């Protein structure tokens, strides 16, 4: 029983990060109808930024979120202004090709600049844990989850309470109608891509103390973000949050009971089942 509770709790903690990456992806898809295949590579960039802030200035990885997020926001906004904006009305395969290309360029740039060595960011508390009765939770994962919760809450507040947030959601609902109401949809696209990239960067900073850092690490995150987003329903932010937590839990529970080699297989099997039984996702409206 303790093993089950332990795995569920660890799953929820890591699921928060998946949710963060997924929310970024769903925000970009919602506002621009572009599936960003480079989302995981943005996470990778966030991990490297955090790593070098730690190595160069001794900055705590969790503290460096405040620098990683703006940096990635700028990178995302730049990508949107120079590249993504050109293909908004293009065929879906061209959009997919472009974002795959951006991902390839980012990971190969990282390989050129930092070599393909695996790097480890170890802090003083990397391997420590907090005990709750017979259950132990890893300290970095716990911090990571708390910061994720704060960022997600701030994002909800921004989208629901502020005027700019309303404009972003209006653009996601109906691009033309939003434009007619005087929303500058072009800027909303830049904002959405920037925020999506910033969330990916935050996720990168938060997992940097627990993951290996190497140029190809992004691919796994991209796939996981797709699973999370489709599970929750494309374009739904609450759905992506729920999807992230569910996937994290499924992963951690299947790793405890079936062995860690099979955990990703279980995740994709769940993904396929959801796609087949409820393609619009758990909380999504049908866009089929």
């Amino acid at each position, binding site marked *: 029983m303790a093993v089950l509770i332990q795995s569920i709790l660890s799953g929820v903690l890591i699921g928060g990060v998946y949710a963060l990456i997924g929310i970024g992806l769903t925000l970009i898809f919602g506002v621009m109808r572009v*599936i960003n295949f480079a989302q995981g590579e943005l996470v990778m960039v966030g991990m490297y930024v955090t790593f070098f802030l730690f190595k160069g200035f001794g900055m705590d990885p969790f503290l460096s979120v405040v620098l990683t997020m703006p940096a990635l926001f700028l990178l995302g906004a730049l990508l949107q202004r120079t590249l993504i904006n050109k293909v908004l009305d293009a065929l*879906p*395969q*061209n959009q*997919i*090709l472009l974002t*795959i290309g951006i991902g390839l360029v980012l990971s190969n740039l990282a390989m050129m600049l930092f070599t393909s060595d695996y790097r480890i960011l170890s802090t003083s508390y990397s391997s420590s844990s907090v005990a709750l009765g017979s259950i132990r939770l890893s300290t970095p994962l716990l911090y990571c989850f708390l910061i994720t919760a704060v960022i997600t809450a701030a994002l909800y507040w921004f989208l629901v309470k502020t005027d700019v947030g309303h404009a972003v959601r209006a653009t996601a609902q109906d691009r033309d109608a939003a434009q007619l109401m005087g929303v500058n949809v072009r800027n909303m696209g830049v904002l959405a891509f920037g925020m999506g990239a910033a969330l990916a960067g935050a996720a990168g900073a938060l997992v940097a103390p627990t993951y290996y850092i190497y140029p190809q690490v992004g*691919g796994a995150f991209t*796939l996981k973000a*797709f*699973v999370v987003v*489709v599970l929750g329903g*494309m374009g739904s932010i609450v759905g992506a949050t729920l999807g992230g937590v569910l996937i994290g839990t499924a992963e951690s529970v299947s790793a405890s009971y079936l*062995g860690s*080699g*099979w955990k*990703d*297989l279980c995740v*994709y*099997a769940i*993904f*396929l089942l959801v*796609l*087949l039984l409820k*393609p619009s996702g758990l909380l999504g409206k049908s866009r*089929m």
Partner: protein
Amino acid sequence: MKATLLAWGLPLVALLFLPLWITSPYALHIFILLFIAIATGESWNVIGGFAGQYSVGHAAFYGLGAYGAFILLQDRHVAPWFGVWVAVAIAAAVALAIGSITFRLRGPYFVLASIAVAEIIRLAALNWKDLTNGAEGILASDLPPLQLGNRLITDWNSKIPYYYMGLAMAVFSIGVNFAVKKTKLGYYLQAIREDQDAAHSLGIPLTVTKNIALVISAACTALAGSFAAFYIGFIEPQQVFGLDVSVQMVLVAIIGGIGTVSGPLIGGVVLVLLSES
């Protein structure tokens, strides 16, 4: 018609005689890579180009072809030129199963489902160690020499037999594309690509048509995959089932122009020359 025949026939004749002049193994290697790229791009084109179903999970079939033939050789001692066809049949059967499930989805959902299926098969190959030897991969040791009757045709020690087999495979995949394009199936597929609902209301059976195209595409991909595996002589899950394998096929077709027979050919030339020079 005459001009088309000439345009395709002349380069083919030139390629047939090329190994007489070019003997450098590196040049032959580039050509073999080119044939593999063309064969996979053309195979993908059947379902991705003509039918507009952007599968980004074709590595599943590529890898099944490679692993099927390798496992038959290592465990059952079936010679590759028989084993390959068994592997192709397995890939076609798996394609039918995958297609029946995933073709209910459209657009981005189909893309994501195809990726998920390929990842599931990759992870299964990684973890089913008794059958696949896991991440250590399989090394093709001593390929039996190819004999016709009692006459030795080749013992696979030079690149020339691979060159001709690769050429035959590329020509075959181009032929398949021509055949699909000129038959009723091709018109059905293009109708589905242009407007799925309109095609359906005209009485085109959507799922059956897409499944036929996928099975053809998967069988050709598996053939290319097992050829590539025997040429390289070693396989491991990431190398044949990885997402980049799927992306490579899609790139070859899209760069050259999807839904055309010559597109993947041009895409293959561009991509192989770019990455090898």
